[in-house]
Structures are given as C-alpha cells and as structure tokens.
C-alpha cells in the first residue's frame, strides 16, 4: 500500500532501531497520548525492544475507554427504547456501563448497528424512515469533523429521523488536567498523529512550554514511531524541549481549517465527563442549538444517570502513570479483560489490559 508500506520497510526501520538503542542518555518517561499509538507500538513489538531508561505509559487518548459509565448507561438505555435503533463504531460494542454493555442490549433485542462511518448511520436512517436512528458519537478531533459533516448533510437533505448523541471529546484539555497534578512525572508526549492532522502540530506548543515537555507528533508506522522515540529521548537528553513533527505527510503546523469550520458550525465547547478522570471543563463538544433537532440528548430528553465510578478503581492514577495496575484493588479480581471496569482495562492495549494479558515478563 503506497504511503504506508515505505514507512514499514525494514530497511528504513532497522537503522532506527540501532539509533534508538543509543538515543537514551537520560532516563525518561513518555506518555502515549493516543490509543492508536499504544496499539501501533504494541503491534510492532516495539515495547520489547525499548532501550533501558525509556518508559512508556498509556494516556487518555482512547475514546471508548474514556467514555464515562454514565454515558454508557445512557447509550444502553437509548438502545433499549422501542422505535429507536443505535448505530455505533465497533469499538463501543463491548464497553461496559454499570449494568452491562451494548452487546448485552443487542442480545435482549435492542437494535444495534455497527458501522464504519457516521454517514453509514445516516444511510440507515434514510432507509428506515419509521425508526429513530441515533448515532452514538465518541471520538476525538479526527472523528468529530466527520460527525459534524454528517449532521450538516442530514440538515441539508432534511432527514428527520437521524440524531447524534455527542460525547465527543477534545485534546489537549485532558492533558492539561493530568499535567496540572504535580505528582505526575512525565518528560514527554508522543502526540497523536491524526488528531494533529486536524488541530495542527502547533496546538501542542503551549503545553510543551508550560510543563517543559518534549513533544513529538508521530505517525503510526514502524519508522515513524522509532524516529519519534529517538527524538523524544534526544530532546530530554539535551534538555532541548520543543514540538517536533515527524508526520509532515499528514500533519501541518496549522491543521485542517476546512474541517475546523465544519465542526464549528455544528458544535460548541462543553464540559465533559471522562471515565477515570471525572469532569473536565471545556473538554467536550455539544451540538449547537441551531441543530438541536439532530441532538439526541435534547430531542429524546435524556437525563444522564448518576453512575458512580466503582469504588477502588484507580484508573485516574494509572492514566497519570502514578500507580501500576497491581496496586489497584480491583485489578484481576473484579476488573479483568472479560469484565473491564475502568478505561485502562477497557482498552485492549491499555495499561491494565496489557499487564493482565501479558504480565510483566513481556
């Protein structure tokens, strides 16, 4: 596949592996902001060849994992409503609320359609005019513009039975929330590639300066990841902190203004609940009043149930890299990959899921 395979080429990656071995001159701890980076690093087997002194911790950038239990409960109760069918990304199917998941709702008769694109959900609405179709919106800035464009299309084509339940979240608000805790000790951020495509590499600059964090915007292929880790190690080693962009084929400093315009037309900033992190101000998006007919929360009069985070769940601390999974009382007892409680276990490569599946002897 063009523009993909070249970056996975062993001849490009091998020299970088060698270079990485020598790049760490000062021990450093890097947070992988983006869940897809955690997955890509895992898939490439990079964790097993990290040089000593370099530690990677998983951050809050996995959209389904940070969907709060009360949002999941609301999603599920929506799916259970007669006359309603919900359309979701596959990622959401098994995420648990306080009383089960959408998979379980589907098993008791709820109509749950798994789609690849929010536009496919709109298609379902058009093909089923007598049902209300609700697209359960999760995702960060990469996904939000597509959802916005879908709502705009629904508006322009006068589709009356399509809605979105928006739990869209934004970067870098949660990073600010994590980093403002002085107990958090990280030296750098592996910045999300496709989110940065939309928001621009420059978005990370204020964070880098305020918290003295090495920042590298990275792609997802082997060579991209290796190069990014090398540059992070060098920034920390030389105490030369800045934002570097290793993904120029997809990311510019300013970002995608066309996408930003579409988002701005449909959405406005809102406070949002994050699983494991609580309510973070201005970290989410809600549909503007002008498009209220597409807002499931408004049109279906949804009251968010008060779902308490289970007692003992230490995901907040684990996301901050301040605790390890084994220190959590729920780890491997009530919380495991088959029955995950917090985002660190919900994500198939989250910190807790990784510990649970592979142990520490990886």
């Amino acid at each position, binding site marked *: 596949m063009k523009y993909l395979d070249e970056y996975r080429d062993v001849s490009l990656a*091998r020299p970088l592996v060698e270079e990485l071995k020598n790049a760490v001159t000062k021990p450093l701890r890097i947070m992988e902001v983006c869940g897809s980076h955690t997955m890509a690093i895992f898939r490439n087997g990079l964790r097993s*060849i990290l040089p000593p002194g370099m530690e990677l911790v998983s951050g809050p950038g996995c959209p389904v994992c940070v969907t709060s239990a009360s949002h999941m409960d609301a999603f599920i109760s929506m799916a259970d409503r007669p006359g309603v069918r919900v359309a979701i990304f596959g990622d959401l199917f098994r995420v648990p609320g306080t009383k089960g998941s959408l998979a379980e709702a589907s098993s008791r008769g709820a109509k749950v359609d*798994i789609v690849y694109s929010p536009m496919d959900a709109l298609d379902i609405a058009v093909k089923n005019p007598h049902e209300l179709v609700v697209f359960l919106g999760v995702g960060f800035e990469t996904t939000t513009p597509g959802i916005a464009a879908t709502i705009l299309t629904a508006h322009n084509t006068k589709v009356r039975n399509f809605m979105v339940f928006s739990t869209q979240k934004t970067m870098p608000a949660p990073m600010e929330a994590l980093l403002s805790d002085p107990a958090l000790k990280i030296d750098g951020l592996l910045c999300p590639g496709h989110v940065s495509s939309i928001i621009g590499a420059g978005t990370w600059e204020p964070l880098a300066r305020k918290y003295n964090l090495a920042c590298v915007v990275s792609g997802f292929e082997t060579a991209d990841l290796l190069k990014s880790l090398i540059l992070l190690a060098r920034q920390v080693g030389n105490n030369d902190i800045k934002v570097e962009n290793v993904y120029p084929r997809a990311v510019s400093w300013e970002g995608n203004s066309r996408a930003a315009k579409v988002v701005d037309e449909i959405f406005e900033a809102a406070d949002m609940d994050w699983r494991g992190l609580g309510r973070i101000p201005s970290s989410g998006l809600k549909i503007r009043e002008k498009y209220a007919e597409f807002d499931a929360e408004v049109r279906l009069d949804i009251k968010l149930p008060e779902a308490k985070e289970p007692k003992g769940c230490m995901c907040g601390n684990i996301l901050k890299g301040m605790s390890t999974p084994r220190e959590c009382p729920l780890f491997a007892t009530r919380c495991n990959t088959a029955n995950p409680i917090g985002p660190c276990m919900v994500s198939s490569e989250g910190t807790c899921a990784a510990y649970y599946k592979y142990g520490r002897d990886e």
Partner: protein
Amino acid sequence: MGEKTILLDHGSGGLASQQLIADLFLKYLDNKTLHSLEDSAILQNRRGRLAFTTDSYVVDPIFFPGGDIGKLAVHGTINDLAMRGAVPYCLSLGLILEEGFAMDELEKIIVSISEACKEAGVPVVTGDTKVVPRGKGDKIFINTSGIGFVAKDIDISSKNAKEGDAVLLSGTMGDHGITIMTRRAGIAVQGDLQSDTMPLHNLVAALLAELPGDIHTLRDPTRGGVATTLNEVATASGLSIELSDESLPIRPQVRAACELLGLEPLYLANEGKCLAIVSGSQAEKALAVMRATKEGKDAAIIGRLVAGRSGRVIINTPVGGARVVTPLHGMPLPRIC
C-alpha cells in the same frame, strides 16, 4: 412444487414435506442411500476407527462471494474429518428453515450442496428438515454431521505437537472472515474479496502419503482465526509457538480491507485453510507437498513450536521485536481507534 416460499407445512412430515424432499432434495442429492428415504442410513462398516464430527452453520449473508451456506457446510464438515487424518465417507444434512424463506434460494443452496458433495466425492446419505414460524429463525440454519475412517497408523492431535516442529499454513489468511464482514451494511468495501471455502481432504491425503508419521497436528483455523487456533494448540501441547510476521501469507486486498477497518487478519475466519504442524526436519518437504496441490498453492512456513510457557503464541516483528498473540475474546469488530 408450486410454492414460492417455505411454509410451515413443509416441516410437518406430511405430504408437503414429502413433496419438498422429492422435488428438491432428491432431485439434486442423488445417491441410493438417500433415495431409500428410511429413518436411518445403514452403512457398511469397515475395520478400524471411525471419526465422527458435527457442525452447524448460521452464516449471514447466506450467499457471499466465493460460496454460500450450503457449500460452507459441506466443506466445513469434510475438513473437520480431514483434520484428524480421516478419509471422509458420508454426511448428514439437517435443515431448519424459516417460514417464508424463498424456494428459489433454497434450491440454489441445495444445488450448491450437491455440487460440493460431488466434487469432494462425499455424499449426503441422510437428512432432516424442520420449519419454524417466521421470525423464529433466520432464513436457513444447516447442521452437517460427518463420518470418516481413520487408518491404523494415523494419530493426529494437537497434543502431539513437539518442540522443534514447524507450523505451516496452507494458504492466505482471513479471506473468508473479511468477505463476510464486508458484506454487512455499513461496512461495505468493494473489490476482489472472496471466501476461501474449500475441502481439504485431498491436501491432507497428499501430506499423509508423503510424510507418514511426520504430520503431528492438523487444524483448520475457522472462527477466531489462526491466532485462536494456535493458542489452542500451544495449550494442548504444553509448548509455545513463535511466528514470523513477515511469513504470514495475506492477499493484498485482504490486508488493505483490514487496514481500513481496523481488523487483524490473524483473527479472521478461514474456511479452506489448514495449519499443519510437522517434524521440523520435514518442513520444506511438507511445504513442497502442499504447494503442489491446488488447495495449498500459497502455503507457507509461518513458525515453529518452542519450549516455553504453555499456551503462549508470540509473533516476531520485522524490526526484531516480539509481541504476544492472545486468543480472541469474542467476534472481531471493525474499529476506528
């Protein structure tokens, strides 16, 4: 037979049932034993051990590029027999039909079953049909059971895999799984994606003829894919399995579709492939034998059995890293993250 759809009467055992059997099943499933229409088929026994297997098929959609539910059922049961080194002998065919199911679709499936049986040389000798009310089934469910004969010196089992054995895969991964997945509304992708459904008993016969004693384990990686099946083998044998990422055979179209949808070919179903675990020293010969067959033309050596934690499957990545491949918890789903 004038009806255009299946009616409850067709499952009642009365004249309507008999008419369905005569006009459809016996028309295409043509062998003496079935035509005698007794309550049981009496088979001539032979000395030795019998292999017996059963499988049910509920795939949706029932027609897909490369095959249909009928063909899948015949191949699937033949393959289960072949994976123990049995020579398939005969099949049973149990159908559960939903009231309202289109007769012409049923006919297509029966024709397909008939062709698959003829091509494989394995007949359906007994069958049954039931009809459930509309809404209580999903068009058609099929159960096939199969009987095969296992020669005296054959002992093929997951437990027999030994340290140092090589792992071979008879062809490309994930073809069936991705084809079914992309036929679903909302996940559509166009292109040359086809199920690989195919009977493997001739491939197995070739391996057993050329390498008697060296074929330790045969498994067909259906649901859960190669990853799940190899995890089972690793657990049963008490060993670890090391795979090489670069050696996994995948069609470019399958790979591209998986990249787009966030799916892993290792976890996608295969319906015409087998994993063979053979003596390490015979790996190249086994590969040559497989590649000389039409079923195994894309065969590859993908890994080996090593001492280590029981049940562990590891992939070595091209850059020299390694990752553990865990079995799937449930169905693979497309993702955006």
